[in-house]
């Protein structure tokens, strides 16, 4: 595999991992900080 292709594959894997972490972390983080529902203020 050419080095550029390998680099793109690694970046895609990294982004995919980051996407999972974001998907797992974001909702608990929001609920912990502001609770459920629309709570502006």
């Amino acid at each position, binding site marked *: 595999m050419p080095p550029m*292709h390998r680099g*793109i*594959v690694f970046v895609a*894997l990294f*982004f995919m991992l980051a996407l*999972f972490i974001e998907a797992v972390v974001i909702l608990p983080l929001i609920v912990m900080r502001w609770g459920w529902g*629309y709570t502006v203020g």
Partner: protein
Amino acid sequence: MTRVDDVRNVEVRPESTGGAAEENPLMKRADRFLLIGIVLGGTWAFGVFSIPFLWIAYRLMSQAQREGRLTRPWAVTIIGTFCLIDASVNFIGWGTDLFMAHDTTLMRTLWPGYGKLVDGAYYIDYNSLAVGGLANLSEKVLQFYGVLVMYPMRMAAAWAFVKMKRWGLQAMVITSFMYVGFWVAYVANLYLAFNARMGASSWGVTGWWIMVIIYASPFVVLPYLYTVNRDLFSD
């Protein structure tokens, strides 16, 4: 010899619906797990549950490789899967803000919470306009474009790309450029309303870029799409 005779002498391949991958039972099974993993990954909120399915798909493809029955390069699988998950996440995720789901408690938690973290447009006057969801109209226009046009095209393109279809490769190129145009419009739109967006969030500019840089997939895959051996995508 006339042109008609030329046509008659062309070898006609039998009609194929799914390419080489579908003719191989092991790869077919692996692709089934891959698709389930991608669908779950695309839900964003349930993304973590996709990991076991993607892992099983990986193991099956490794087995196929050991047996010499791997029908496509790993790079195509990884890049296609990433682009498909990315498009699905945006399609489903943004779709929840565009359509009626923005009235549910889950989405009235997730979107204004996201707004308070990184992008103020998602909590300021949320659900206050006729169409609901975020109240920034230029962002709403981009939502219509993304959710109704670009992301569905991208999802179809990425799956056909994984299936090694020629039109899949072509559609990936087309949708990547659509994505580039979309990104320029999105970022310009974002910074034009800076005070009400990143300026009104907890994490500001740095937080927004950390959260959203993940979705810059077109810039990553375009060089690959232009340098990959096109003859591989022959179906």
